[in-house]
Structures are given as structure tokens and as C-alpha cells.
């Protein structure tokens, strides 16, 4: 399969053992996306803290480039990202790096919580970093904007809403299908094994070469995970609508809803 060689260069996820050995050879930069306080209490040895909120405060390409350079991430540096939120925050950061043209970025296949449960080493030492150069090669083919959605959909693109089922039923972008982010994970791994994920996609009759746009509630985190789930199957034509439903609503674009049913009242929350 042509996907194979590609998977070698850009691995979507990395397992804990592999990451540990790469940390030992110092061949990888690790980013921790949790809040600063949590990070300070302990993190994967060598990990650099980039709280999602800091990134979101300004996620313009120039700013992201600055972050990468200050962390010592060069064009060829392998980067592994993790969080403690299903891998969704890590996905958003990984996607952002990909967007500025950094190719070698992967997700740790477990969350920090699981890493600790496994009894793997942690550290509270803050690593020193040496600034380096990184080029800027924007990848617009992985970004979807609100203007892009409707024409793309008309040409056959599939719109995927990664929010939870009840939120989706209540309101979603017209024509979107729902793949709740919870569906993507299995047991302790942030993504299911490929054969499982592939079945879920095949059950929905989605062809591997389809154009797919993922979105979620506000900032492209849950849909970032959706993006990488599809990527892990070797699907290449995937885009993230990074401003997601929050922007869509603020633009007062049309919204679809499952009418005449009180589904919220089934929740025991």
C-alpha cells in the first residue's frame, strides 16, 4: 500500500515505550499541553510546557513559529505532544505545528494520567531549551474556513461533527454527520486500533479518498482528535475547521437540529 511509506515518515501516534527510548537518545522534543501548574507538579522527563490557553491566545503562524523556534524545534526535529484531555488538546497543537509546515509531529498514544498509572517516569525539572531556526511553509490544504465549507460540501466533501451526541442533535452545521470524539478512543489509548477505526468509517460508507472536514464546539480540539483519527487510517484529504461551531454560530449561518424530541431528558447527568 502506498500509505505505508508515508506512515513511516509521519506517524500519527507513538506508544509509551518508543517515546521513552527516544527521550533517552534525545532524538525527540516532547510538548506538554496541560496547564502550567499541573506541568510544574510533574511531567514526562524533558517535556516542554505549552498550555493550550497560551497557544490559543495567539495562534497566528508567526507566533506559533516563534514558539517552535524558542523550544529548539527545527524543521526536521521529531515532536511528540501529549495532554490529559483525551489527546484532544494535544491534537490541536500538533495540527497547528503541521499547519506552519512542521511535518514530523505525533501524539503520545496515552494521556499523562495513563502514563502515570503505568508507573512510568516523571520529572518536575524544567528543561532548558536552545533557540533554533524553523522555516514557515503554510499548509492551507489542512485548514477549512467557514467560507470553504458549503462549496466543498456541494462538491462531495463530508462534514464530521466530533461533539457528543446530544450536543449534535440539538444543533449542528447542516448536513454534518456525527462521530463523537468518545468513539475514537479505546480503553486507555487516545485512538482505537486502526482496524477498529477503519470499521467505524466503513460502516458509514465513507471512502478512503473522500475529502473530510472535521469540526467541534469551539476551538478545534475534539475535532483535532477526529482529524488525527482519520489521518491514522492513511486518509490524506482531511481538513480541520479550526474555528468550528462557535464561529459558525457567531456568523449566524444556518443550523440544523433534530426536532420534536426531548432527548436531553434521557441524560442522568
Amino acid at each position, binding site marked *: 500500500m502506498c500509505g505505508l511509506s508515508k506512515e513511516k515518515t509521519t506517524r500519527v501516534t507513538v506508544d509509551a515505550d518508543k517515546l521513552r527510548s527516544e527521550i533517552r537518545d534525545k532524538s525527540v522534543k516532547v510538548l506538554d499541553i496541560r496547564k502550567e501548574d499541573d506541568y510544574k507538579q510533574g511531567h514526562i522527563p524533558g517535556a516542554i510546557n505549552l498550555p493550550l490557553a497560551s497557544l490559543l491566545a495567539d495562534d497566528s503562524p508567526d507566533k506559533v513559529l516563534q514558539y517552535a523556534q524558542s523550544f529548539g524545534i527545527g524543521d526536521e526535529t521529531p515532536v511528540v505532544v501529549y495532554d490529559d484531555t483525551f489527546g484532544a488538546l494535544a491534537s490541536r497543537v500538533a495540527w497547528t505545528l503541521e499547519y506552519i509546515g512542521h511535518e514530523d509531529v505525533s501524539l503520545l498514544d496515552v494521556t499523562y494520567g495513563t502514563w502515570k498509572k503505568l508507573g512510568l517516569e516523571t520529572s518536575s525539572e524544567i528543561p532548558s531549551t536552545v533557540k533554533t531556526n524553523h522555516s514557515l511553509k503554510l499548509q492551507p490544504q489542512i485548514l477549512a474556513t467557514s467560507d470553504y465549507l458549503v462549496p466543498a460540501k456541494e462538491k462531495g466533501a463530508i462534514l464530521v461533527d466530533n461533539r457528543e451526541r*446530544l450536543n449534535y*442533535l440539538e444543533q449542528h452545521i447542516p448536513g454534518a454527520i456525527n462521530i463523537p470524539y468518545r468513539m475514537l478512543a479505546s480503553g486507555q*489509548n487516545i485512538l482505537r*486500533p486502526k482496524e477498529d477505526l477503519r470499521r467505524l468509517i466503513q*460502516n458509514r*460508507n465513507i471512502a478512503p479518498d473522500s475529502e473530510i472536514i472535521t469540526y467541534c464546539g469551539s476551538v478545534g480540539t475534539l475535532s483535532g482528535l477526529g482529524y488525527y483519527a482519520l489521518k491514522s487510517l492513511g486518509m490524506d484529504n482531511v481538513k480541520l475547521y479550526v474555528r468550528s461551531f462557535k464561529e459558525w454560530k457567531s456568523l449566524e449561518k444556518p443550523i440544523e437540529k433534530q426536532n420534536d424530541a*426531548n432527548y436531553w*431528558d434521557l441524560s*442522568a447527568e
Partner: protein
Amino acid sequence: MSNTSIQSKPDNVPKHKINWGRLEEAERFSEMVKLFRQGKINRDDFRRFRLQHGAYGSRMTDDYSMIRLKLPAGEVYSEQLEKIADLSEQFSIGSAHVSTRQNFQLHWVALEDVSEVLRGLAESGMTTREACGNSVRSIMCSPLAGVCPDEVFDPTPYAVGATKFLLRNPLCQALPRKFKINFTCCEKHGMARMVDIGLIPQQGEVNGKPQRGFKVFLGGGLGAQSFVGHQLEPFTSEDEVLYTIVSVIRIFDRLGNRENMARARMRYLVNEMGWEKFQNLVLKERAMIKMLLSVIIKLEVDKTVESMRKISISSEIPSVPQGYARWVKSNTFKQKQPGFSCVFLTLESGDVTSNQLRAIADIAREFTADGQIRNGFTQDMVFRWVRDEDLPRVYSKLLEVGLANPGALTMASVVGCSGTTSCNLALTNSHRLAKEVQRKFIELKIDEDDDLRNSTIKISGCPNSCGQHEIATIGFYGGGGRLGKDMYPLYSMSLGGRADETTTLGHSCTKVPAKRVIPTILKIVEIFKSDKKSGETLDLWVKRVIEGNGGPTIKSLDDIKELLKPVVIAPTKDQDEDFYADYGSDGSYHTKTGRGECAA
């Protein structure tokens, strides 16, 4: 690439013994959905297939399913609960629903994902096969079976044995209509007279030798028109039970009304034919089958005595948390085995979150000697074999996850069918109303009132009785009312239903607007208190009134209706806009229904 994995810790907790699931059925389901979406099978054939595998359509859409599990005898183990929790989080809405027939239901599952849910269930030994459709539905068994002080013997192995024989059996793949079988422990706990076949354990004699057997009731059932079952014969020995069940199913299969779905349930056949004729037919059929069959068919009954686990009781005396006494009184039941209790969980309309299911699984592992959970008959869940001295600890654990509400075995625990949350035929949001009533009544400490303990409140969203309103002391079914051009949600209220040895269907009393249901029930309690004889409970008072022995002031249901008039009167929309919206909706009320699948 291999994934990071955690080894699960070994445990000595009992696991499911029978694998009811079949992985092939999940795979077949996924193929069928694809064919259906490609237009290669027609809607009706697909619907039949879907229902046979436990998936209903949802309100106003077939793109989502309500998946109903089949849990024979309501038995479920911790690992299975955890699987259900995961599946609900992944493919449903993060909550599961415990039904009145001991099953779990997962709502709003995308049709494309049903096969994944079936796969997950099969991996943990569970099935949805013949949970809906025109089949023998899950065979129920009282959650107190095996521990009830009044039972003659434990009927559970018989319910399981009957399921083993009937599930996937060609005999019951295309019945005229659904078919329900219930086993109970005793007269009080269960509903032997409100199903197609109901069985109560009984000790008898055959050829001078003592033998186990059952009282068998036929032709009962709730629905738009309900009937109470008839007893087939004084004693049906255990050797004859399977012959009897098979005979009844064969007669129903041959003679049931296949023309008119609304008259297709066996109870209509019994009613139209007359009981004596039907009874003769069954006895003849049974004699004939016994003669003609070259093999003896007998229930495979596992009578090995379960050895109970030793559960660790820590020696420290727990501090007794707030509310414990009230909870113990209304949520626990002393087993016939000294030193052990059953614990009933008060859910709201049977809904339970995935996290709560996980907590329930943990509690069962830690505190129950049989390591299992049973779902009950009233949208509840039950731990059995809990040591009395562990009850405070169980209560504390339940408190932590919001499951320690009192009232489970009292009138404060209300049953409500799905209503407009997911059912195509619903006219009102009975599901939410049941939650509202329950919250209010727990707040008012209704559960502490011994006069109300044995009474029940049950609510259906339309006349079809899924909420079993007809066997409730106070029962409601939904409809629409109108004042001028404005519509509002309006329930019909019946009083005096019961499901024990004096099984009676409720008598219709008056209509009650949705937003007046709570004040109406409170008013009834007030009337009862002023009229009751000393020591009389609400259900017995209602019974007395219905039987014409009422008094001093209340002589008939009409007297109650009269006193309720000021409570149920409809204000104009200008006076009270909220009155015109159902629970859970802000907009004006309107009725809207789709095609119901109970008949499919």
C-alpha cells in the same frame, strides 16, 4: 504499531457464565445496514431484521436507534456493566436506561454504529437478539428470586433455562406479535398475571412424590387494552413446564391475529375465544406434543448451588453518614438468608450515567457475595447478598456518585416510559414528568410516610402502557388537551391498579394537566389522610373506595374527581403560559407522532 497497554488486574469476581451473544450477528447487522443504505433491501424487510436484533427506530427518525439488550432474568455482571458504560459513552448519550422489563436500553445510537454496539455486547456475553419485534422477549424473573422470604424455591434457573431453549429457536422467529414470559419468586414480587405466560413457583405432588412446579397464568398483559391472566391448572410440574410453554407459543403462532396488529397479542385471542376454550386447547396441544415428540424436551435447569464468595469486611466501624437511616428503611430488603440484605437503587426514570454504572460495578465487586447485579421491574437496579454490617459503607459509596437517593421501595420512586424523549408514539414527556414527581416527593420526604409505602406512581406517554400506568395505585397516560385554540399536555389518571395476587387494572378517575400532576397527587394524599381508617394504606383505601365500601366522606372515585376539580382546571394562556408547555420544552405544546414500531 503496537499500542501502549495496561494489564488488567486479575480478580476473583464471578464473571458471566452464559454467552448469549453472537459476533456473527453484529457483522451481519453491519452488512444489512450497508445494503439498506444502498437501497438493496426494502424498508420493511430491513425494519423486521433490525427489530429482531434489538434496534428500534427513534422519535421522528430511523437514522438513530434505541438498542434494547436482552438480559435474561435481569442478571448482569460487573464486567458487563463496564462494557455497557463504555458503549453508552462511545455510541449513545453517556447514560443508559434501565427498563421495566429488566433490560438496558441505549438511546440515540446512529444506525451505522448499531453493529459496533452489538459487537461490544457480544464480546461480554450479551445480546440484543429478540429483544424487540415479534419474538419471545426477554424472560423476566423477580430480582428477589433466591432471596425472597416468601418464595418456595428460586425460579432463576428456570428463567435462564427457558431462555436457552427459546432464544434463536425457529419456533419463535415470526410470531403474530411480541410474547412475554415472567417468572416471579412469590405472589407479591413480580407480575405473573400481567404477561402472556406468568409462572409462580409452587410445591406440589406427582404420583405421591413431592415435586417442584409452578402456578402458570396465561393471557394477561398491559396495552391499549389490558387483561389479567388466567391460571391454567392448579399445579404444573417442572417436567411439564417447557411442554406447556411450547404448546402455548404454538397455539399463539397458529391462531394469533395476523391481520390486525392492534389485536394480535395473545391476550386478545384468549379473550375472543373465551378462557375455557383456550385452556382446553392448551391442554390438548400439550398432550399431543408429548405423545408425538420422540425426544423428551425438558428445561435445562442448573441446580448447582452457588457457593457465595467470602467478601472482605473490614473491622473498622464506619461512621454512619447523614441520611443513612432513611435510606436503609426505603431502599433495602432483608433476605431470607440471615445477615444479608438486598439494596435497591433509586434511579430517575431508570436513567444512569456511564460513570455511575462503573461505580455500581465496583460496589458489586466489593460488597456482594454473588458478585452480580440484577435489574428490577421498576427501572431500578438491585445488589443482593450484601452483608448487613456493610450497608453503611455501601451507602457512603453510593452517596459519592449520586446514587444514594432514598425511596426506591416506596411511592417516591416513579416509573416513566420514554415518552417524547425518544418514542415515536409519544404524546407527552412522561419520562421527564416521572423525574419531576420523584424529585419533588423525595424533597417532601414522601418515602418516610408508611401510609404511602406500598403505593406506586407510573406514567406512560400515550395509552400504550409501556410505563405500566394501569397497575399503579396512581397511574397516568399522556394525551393532549385544548382550551379554545391552545393545546396543552394532559394526562388521564387512573387509580387502584395493582399487580399482586389481587391484580386489578386501575379505574379511570379524571384528566390532569401535565403541570398539575404533582399538586393532584398531593391533593389525593390529603383526601386519603382525612378519610382513611386507622392503619389503612393509600393503596388499600383506594381499593376500598373502588369496591364500593368507601366512606366516611369519599364513597366513590367520582367524589375524588369532584374534589380535584379546582386543582385540574385549565387557566388561559395569558394567565399561565407555562401551563401550555410540556416538561422539557419551552415552546407551545403540540402533538406529533410517527409510525410506532411496537407492532412491527
